[in-house]
């Protein structure tokens, strides 16, 4: 069952927190809503769940208009950051809650609880109480509870944000496996973590300031972002203001060869290069600047180099002999690793 937002606007006391969202999640698709806090992504999810009422627009589930339905009639599975398990119920009772609310037969309830716990690897913990479980285990129970009612739509609101980094990557793999095992379940996955979105989602909807900024597959958004916000939020990027010439762009007095097709010569634009695609030393598309900061990150060094008043980041495989602060260094990048974006905030 797919999800469709049809010009959905949500406002509290005249304060618009979601501005005319148009978005379609195909049946069986994982759509990540990615954005900083206050971008409206959680509001969008809550509008699907039925916890906020849009002031205008419709929410459709599988072609059915559910805008006016209360949450308990929508048949949606929901998993939130803080698990929200019922503390006085055992794990199996938590998972059975939704089935009991639907008056499912006892034998079937038992079978489906066992199945859901099996699927999330929590079968051995059925008789425990939530307080006896770790955060990761509690989140598995919450997922089992949401899946037990066999929803067609699963809403995940920052499900991994309360877990530590190591658990998070493990759970991410678990969620990907669940998605493969349940190919018909559409998932709406709200996160501010681009790694989670890139790893898990079929498509990513980038949100900022209550609006949808861009929507596309992870590769599209990463390789050829459409605007500065998407470029920097998905993957991180060097964004420098340039002037477009005939066969390239000019920046800080240097001529850089990049693909300028589709952009008028003489126009202002933003050059976007991913930090890990920037090399140290001489090469084509050369930028010269002063090292202002060096961060050692284990496998890589990150250099911050000031080029004509603009900070350029370079992620380099761990350097045997890293430059010192204040050294003048040359950076370079390949022409086809750069993307030209419409001029935005980086132009000041």
């Amino acid at each position, binding site marked *: 069952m797919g999800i469709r937002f049809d010009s959905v606007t949500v406002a509290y006391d005249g304060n618009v927190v979601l501005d005319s969202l148009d978005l379609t999640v195909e049946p069986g698709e994982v759509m990540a809503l990615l954005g900083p806090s206050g971008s409206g992504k959680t509001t969008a999810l809550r509008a699907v769940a039925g916890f906020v009422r849009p002031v205008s627009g419709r929410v459709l589930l599988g072609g059915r208009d559910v805008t006016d339905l209360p949450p*308990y009639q929508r048949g949606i599975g929901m998993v*939130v950051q803080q698990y*929200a398990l019922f503390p006085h119920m055992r794990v199996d009772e938590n998972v059975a*809650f939704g089935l009991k*609310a*639907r008056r499912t037969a006892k034998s079937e309830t038992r079978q489906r609880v066992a199945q859901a716990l099996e699927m999330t690897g929590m079968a051995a913990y059925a008789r425990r109480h939530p307080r*006896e479980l*770790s955060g990761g*285990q509690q989140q598995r129970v919450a997922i089992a509870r949401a899946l037990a009612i066999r929803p067609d739509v699963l*809403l995940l609101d920052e499900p991994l944000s309360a877990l530590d980094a190591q658990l998070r990557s493990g759970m991410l793999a678990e969620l990907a496996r669940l998605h493969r095992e349940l190919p018909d379940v559409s998932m709406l996955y709200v996160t501010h973590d681009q790694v989670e979105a890139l790893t898990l989602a079929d498509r990513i909807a980038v949100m900022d300031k209550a609006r949808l900024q861009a929507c596309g597959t992870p590769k599209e958004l990463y390789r050829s972002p459409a605007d500065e916000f998407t470029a920097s939020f998905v993957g991180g990027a060097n964004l420098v203001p340039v002037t477009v010439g005939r066969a390239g762009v000019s920046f800080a007095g240097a001529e850089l060869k990049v693909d300028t097709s589709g952009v008028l010569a003489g126009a202002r634009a933003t050059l976007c290069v991913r930090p890990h695609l920037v090399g140290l030393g001489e090469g084509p598309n050369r930028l010269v600047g002063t090292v202002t900061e060096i961060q050692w990150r284990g496998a890589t060094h990150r250099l911050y180099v000031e080029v004509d008043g603009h900070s350029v980041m370079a992620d380099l495989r761990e350097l045997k002999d890293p430059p010192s602060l204040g050294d003048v260094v040359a950076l370079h990048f390949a022409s086809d690793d750069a993307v030209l974006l419409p001029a935005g905030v980086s132009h000041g």
Partner: protein
Amino acid sequence: MADTARNTRVVGGWSRPSGGSHRSGTAPRSSGTLLWALPPVAALALFFLYPLALVVQQSFQPDSGGTSLQPYTDVFASDAFRHALWTTVWLAAASTVGCLVLGFLLALVIAFVPFPGAKAVSRFIDVFLSFPSFLITLSLLFIYGSVGMANGAWTDLTGAASGPFQFLTTPWGVLLAEVTYFTPFVMRPLLAAFSQLDTAQLEAASSLGARAPRIVRQVILPEALPALAAGGSLVLVLCLNEFGIVLFTGAKGVTTLPMLVYSKAILESDYPGACVVAVVNVLISVGLYSLYRVVSRRAGA
């Protein structure tokens, strides 16, 4: 995966400070700390324990002189005492049940139904707790008393000699007054517990298909139990010892233990008898309180 439970939540907002019991025992207690403990203990003994001891002592000294169980056998044998004991217990129990039901429903509305002025109502409950109990009875007298507003309107309209509202001088009048006055004592801990309740749990229950009654029964009520137990036991003990409300309703047929103490001591000058009733009253209160402590500790509250 590490099995440590990192997110233990305090159910219903009641918890015992975990470090409290470690303090004593390890550090050697100096004479200085004992000196500090002396004034409060002395004050407690002088103003509380000594009079209590006097009451107990008096209860064993019949007017005929000497020390004997005679006052107890006399009092226990009297119909007035048995009647008062029964009235006290059932009135207190019924009031407590009434307060719990009414308090739970009102607290639910205030905490979970968003309406303008919910905060103001919640604050008014704090103020209400500071009112003297007879004030409520007095206001009920103004409304339902034999010459109160309701009966006055009735007699004016129909020309009848008396109005239909005569229940205030019956046990039901006392029950109404006690429920009215003591309900906020249940609501206060409940509202505190509700404010601690994770709204995400209510939303999760709702999206799993549960309607409001099921959510109240299976999610909210279990987490409110410690608060209900705390408020309920407080109200029970207060009702057992309530004097002002019973006195002010002017219900002649309603004699509770505190009323019996009053009438024996002041009206009949039967001090040993009054002390016996007082001792029984204290024992019931302390007994119920200990029972509550045992039960609540077993429930892990």
